């Protein structure tokens, strides 16, 4: 019971902190002091207090978009184990639901963006959907490796004990390939550099930020929070794969897990500081390489 309370509170409260860490890292590497670590929380609170400005072109879809997006992402997170702590819900085939809840979130973000009739948002949506067609099968390939490795179809079992029971030098290489693939998917799904740059000054070059240009106030807050949670979920997936053996002791395993995801957001901050955003046509190639890495991992894998 206590474990579940910790699980839920870490899950609900922690996500914005990762963005704070990422921004702080970027600021330090750029030679600035940067915003406080807790700035994402302040932003969220302020956004929820604000009044909204709604485009006159929009319909109810504009409201429904952020709401469904956030709920879908949060439910997807309930399926994901955090370190050695079991997922809140877990059943056979839950990783399929996990991937499809992301698709649901994407569907509603995009139609809410298209509801405004803006050309910028149209561009963002077209890019997002094009890239998702490569990311989703890539994610499935990655999950297939875990299914093969663990012999289970539920995320909790797949990513915890069983995953490393059967590791040996024959299947180590595919696992490394999957980790590289998953890292690219992490960057792409969360619209980070080199796939997308949330901080450019031009709407023309963005993906995710271009889609939410017209949202304001609490709706924007929902979107931001959903983005935070999504980053948290995917980095905890990556963390569980990279750092397999957490202590069987509850507190130590939590400590290990938290250190792991903080390190991942730190690394993403470094990647963002030392790289530039790729040209849109190059992004496809990067994503295809993730897809192929995960796909080849499935093929060359031996139990």
């Amino acid at each position, binding site marked *: 019971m206590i474990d579940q309370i910790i699980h839920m509170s870490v899950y609900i409260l922690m996500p914005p902190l990762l963005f704070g860490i990422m921004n702080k890292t970027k600021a330090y590497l750029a030679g600035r002091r940067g915003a406080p670590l807790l700035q994402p929380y302040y932003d969220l609170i302020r956004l929820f207090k604000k*009044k*909204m*400005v*709604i*485009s*006159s*072109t929009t*319909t*109810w*879809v504009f*409201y*429904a978009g952020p*709401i469904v997006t956030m709920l*879908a992402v949060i*439910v997807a997170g309930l399926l994901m184990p955090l370190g050695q702590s079991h997922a809140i819900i877990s*059943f*056979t*085939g839950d990783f*399929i*639901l996990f*991937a*499809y*809840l992301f698709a*649901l979130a*994407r*569907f509603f973000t*995009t*139609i809410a963006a*298209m*509801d*405004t*009739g803006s*050309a*910028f948002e*149209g561009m963002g*949506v*077209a*890019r997002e*959907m*094009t890239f*998702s*067609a*490569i*990311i*989703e*099968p890539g994610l*499935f390939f990655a999950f*297939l490796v875990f*299914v093969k490795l663990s*012999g289970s*179809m539920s995320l909790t079992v797949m990513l915890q004990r069983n995953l490393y029971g059967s590791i040996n030098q024959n299947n180590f290489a595919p696992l490394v390939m999957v980790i590289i693939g998953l890292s690219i998917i992490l960057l792409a799904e969360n619209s980070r550099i080199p796939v997308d740059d949330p901080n450019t000054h031009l*709407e023309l070059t963005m993906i995710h930020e271009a889609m939410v240009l*017209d949202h304001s*106030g*609490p709706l924007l807050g929902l979107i931001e929070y959903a983005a935070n949670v999504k980053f948290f979920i995917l980095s905890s997936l990556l963390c569980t794969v990279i750092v397999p053996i957490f202590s069987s002791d509850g507190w130590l395993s939590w400590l290990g897990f938290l250190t792991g995801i903080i390190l991942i957001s730190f690394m993403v901050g470094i990647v963002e500081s030392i790289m530039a955003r790729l040209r849109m*046509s190059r992004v*496809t190639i990067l994503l295809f390489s993730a897809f192929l890495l995960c*796909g080849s991992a*499935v093929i060359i894998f031996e*139990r």
Partner: protein
Amino acid sequence: MSLQLIIVAIVGIALSGVVGILLGKSVKCKQALTTIIVLISSVLGLVGAFIGLFSEATSFKFFYWPTIGGALIGLDELSAFFLIPVFLIGGLGAIYGMGYWKLSEHIYSSQKLQLFWGFLVAGMGLLLIGRHVFSFLMGWELMAISAFILVMTEDEEAECRKSGLVYLIATHISTLTLFGFFALWHYATGSFVFQPIGEGILQPGMLNALFFLALIGFGLKAGMMPLHFWLPGAHASAPSHVSAILSGVMLKMGIYGLIRVGLLLPTPPSLWGTIILTVGSISGLLGVVFAIAQHDIKKLLAYHSVENIGIILIGLGIAFLGRTYNQPEWVALGMAGCLLHVWNHSLFKSLLFFGAGSVLHSTGKRNLDIMGGLGKKMPVTALFFLIGAIAISGIPPLNGFVSELFIYIGLIRPTALGDPHAIGLAMTAPVLAMIGALAAACFVKVYSAVFLGSERSEDIKPVHESPKTMLIPMAILAALCVAIGVFPQYVTFILESIIHQKILLNIIPLKIYSFFSLGFVISIVVLYIWMKFRPKKPKEALTWDCGYAKPTSRMQYTATSFGNGFAIMFEWILHSKVHKTKLNDVMPGQVTFESHVNELVLDRFLKPFFRKTQTAFSWFGRFQQGASQNYILYILIAVLFLMAMLVPYNEWFLPFIKN
């Protein structure tokens, strides 16, 4: 009992259109009368089919025809399962037709349409209960021919005539192949009755011949790649409720045929399952890729039918492989996915075609690039279309996801259990994921191009919401999509009664899923109400366009620009043709841009092939000119030739050879 009900329903639906004709010109309410007859019969049929789902298989002789041995009909769970969409869409489509194709607006074609609508539904009903080649093919041809006449409803348009003709040719190739199949069946088994062939009775060669004839014959009807070439044109040209029943139900008759043949034949070799799986993956992927490239809303939906048939075939392939490797679990999961997707597709595809029909009815346009902003003027249609769009993209919590979940688990579970044959199945799962992602992209494109943003063209200004006769069928279909999506465990009972295994709920705990999707839907509604009715009222403003003060609707992203990224990614198969004016002046005048994608099989292979054949054999034309004196000459030559046979060559030549 159930079979009698279904026979009454079939006869009632078949005769419904005749009533309208007998009543004569002066009676105003005959369209309503016909619809009511169709409705009553469909309800009877649905009741019969639901009873049939849970009762023992029955069959009896319908009537006796000495030459081929009588028409046997019967009902089992599989037939009953397929009969449900037939009667459901048959009934709902008739209601929809009352608003969409009004008698007062289409005096000539409306009655014809209703008459053949009845024949189409009756034909499908008959072929589903047929247990003998004769009754089966009678239903099959009734269905095929009435579908042709329905497609040709608007035969004053050249494009409609053209695609109708392609359909007619295709459907007869299919029938011809089936003739071949049944002739071979009779040769192999000695009877025209559908009775399972025992193990080891027939040679593998004969079994392969039977299977491939069935695959081509039924596959053509189902619209699997590369035999789908007739489908997009025919389904786009027909009136929308006809497209709905053609796409949603008639294609499934091909799937029914494949399942039936699979049940009749003994344990299949692994080749069959692999081929079905491969063809399914190709149909799924290319179907959706070609759908994204379309500008015509109905053609786009038609290509999505190819995609969904692909998904259904993937499920069927798993079941075939399960039989080969003696794995009842694979059969259960594959068949459950295949069958449930048959139902789901008939629900959401009909819903989408009805929605597209509503748009067409009120705007008169099918081109996606000039629509927009209809969501404000047709809010109810927009909501239903959105439900259909989410469902067809296979996104939870609607019904499309449930059937895809079965198929996914069927594909991946062998890997989890460490089966040596699992790798081929496992590699299909990412293909399915890609199909899902592309379908979602396509429906974001359609939904936003039609219903969101603002009007892109002045032509579509006078827009009205559809009449209730069109909205009610859509409401029923949308409600069913949500119901199956949120409470899948109740449908599972029906599926388990067909596959005769009670393992689905043990493998996939759908109750947990159902609980969470219900909670999910409720929390969406709660949060929506909270956001919408906050005390701080929102301020209205223009859409942000970098501070540009007077945005016009022409600045919006169009469906074509949306699909451009995909068009580049799949250029290797799409080969899209772009026609644009070159800009060579500092101050260019008016420029135009047009792009289109040719049909993969029809425009790129079949048409050039037949054109070349025609040129190559043009010399033969001079023998066949219709001049009767020539024909008399040919007869004379033939007679002379025959007479020459009478000459005793042996006696003349043999002595020379001997010497």
